[in-house]
């Protein structure tokens, strides 16, 4: 590994080539032209990185786009993050929205907001509190909790409005598999797991469970199958 050469600080608007640093702090708007390897990455404002990012901790207040992969021990995002590659973190906390073109691996993954993950979302403990339409091709993990927190849902007005144009669901996924699963407002082809509970607004074609199964009266599904 190359030697780390101190800190990179951008106050205002500037660009950098990337490289190895201790801390990278951007206040304002930054552009980084290549790979970034650092201990700490903090963005207040906006930053576009045209490469892969490897860091121990990543904190974003504002918006951030990454052309490659993001690999970090901890990631905290308040705002938006757009990742063109894969995301691999130990712990991720997202308030806002995140888009990932590839897969997403995390031990702990908490979202309050929305997400769009093109491949597999694989996490140990997954807590998704959704404020709008979100998507993942596949979700797998130990404990999966999906809650729909739609703000304007007081009189279930949004449901009525949105379902008339066929977009009422907060979460859409092909397959959801895990040990403990709780879902709300989710549309999926297949849900498989040990203990499954389906809350209001779920539309699941096939449910397979080993342990227990509970469903809200407002959930729509094909016949659940105990295996």
């Amino acid at each position, binding site marked *: 590994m190359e030697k780390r050469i101190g800190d990179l600080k951008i106050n205002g608007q500037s660009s950098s080539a990337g490289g190895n640093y201790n801390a990278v702090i951007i206040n304002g708007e930054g552009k980084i032209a290549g790979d970034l390897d650092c201990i700490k990455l903090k963005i207040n404002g906006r930053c576009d990185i045209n490469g892969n990012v490897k860091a121990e901790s990543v904190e974003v207040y504002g918006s951030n786009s990454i052309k490659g992969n993001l690999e970090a021990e901890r990631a905290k995002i308040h705002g938006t993050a757009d990742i063109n590659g894969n995301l691999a973190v130990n712990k991720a906390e997202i308030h806002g929205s995140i888009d990932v073109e590839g897969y997403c*691996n995390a031990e702990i993954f908490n979202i309050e907001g929305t997400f769009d993950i093109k491949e597999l979302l694989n*996490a140990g403990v997954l807590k998704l509190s959704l404020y709008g339409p979100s998507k993942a091709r596949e979700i797998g993990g130990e404990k999966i909790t999906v809650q729909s927190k739609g703000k304007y849902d007081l009189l279930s007005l949004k449901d009525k409005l949105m379902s008339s144009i066929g977009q009422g669901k907060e979460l859409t996924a092909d397959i959801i*598999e895990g040990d403990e699963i709780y879902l709300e407002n989710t549309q999926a*082809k297949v849900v498989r797991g040990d203990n499954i509970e389906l809350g209001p607004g779920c539309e699941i074609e096939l449910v397979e469970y080993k342990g227990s199964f509970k469903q809200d009266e407002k959930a729509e599904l094909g016949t659940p199958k105990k*295996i």
Partner: protein
Amino acid sequence: MEQELISKKELLELTGISYGQLYRWKRKNLIPEEWFIKKATFTGQETYFPKERILDRIGKIKDMKGDVSLDDLADMLSPDLMKIVLERKKLVERNIVSKTALDFYIQERGEMEKFAFENMLYLYILDKMFESGKINFEEGKTILSLLEEQYPKFKGKGGELLFLRKLGISSCCLVSNVCDVYFEESMKIIEKMNLSDLIEELKIKIA
């Protein structure tokens, strides 16, 4: 190289592991991405695995996970080469390779006191082939030079070593990653060795 597949559901039933465990092991790279084979079925997409390899791998993980951390286990099971150097007498003492194979190697390549992981791997492969009685020393030389010249290009990726014989004339080749290779009838595949499996075995022996 047609392989039997097993569906994810069958796999979990057979091994008694849960979805959560399987996903965790996948995250930790204990199960390589290429083993997750997607196939379209009437319920949409299903995941299948190469049966023999996944069962073997899950057996190993279950056996070892009490003693080593998942991260260490991932290192052991990955086809990346280890950065380790062992002394010559340790190799025989710890029963990693036989003395015959070691003597052959020394005779070919001159005196060596310390062995890097690559050298150990070549030696291990040769030892296995000598032991099976399928090759003689002369053929061992060909295999050794093939490995030494070509294997570094693989850079720790898996692959297969094929040893072939046609009308009494032998040859060998290295194939990167597993793909289907077909030969004409009179060409016989005498031995087929999966390099990632061998690396894994060797790592476990050294550890």
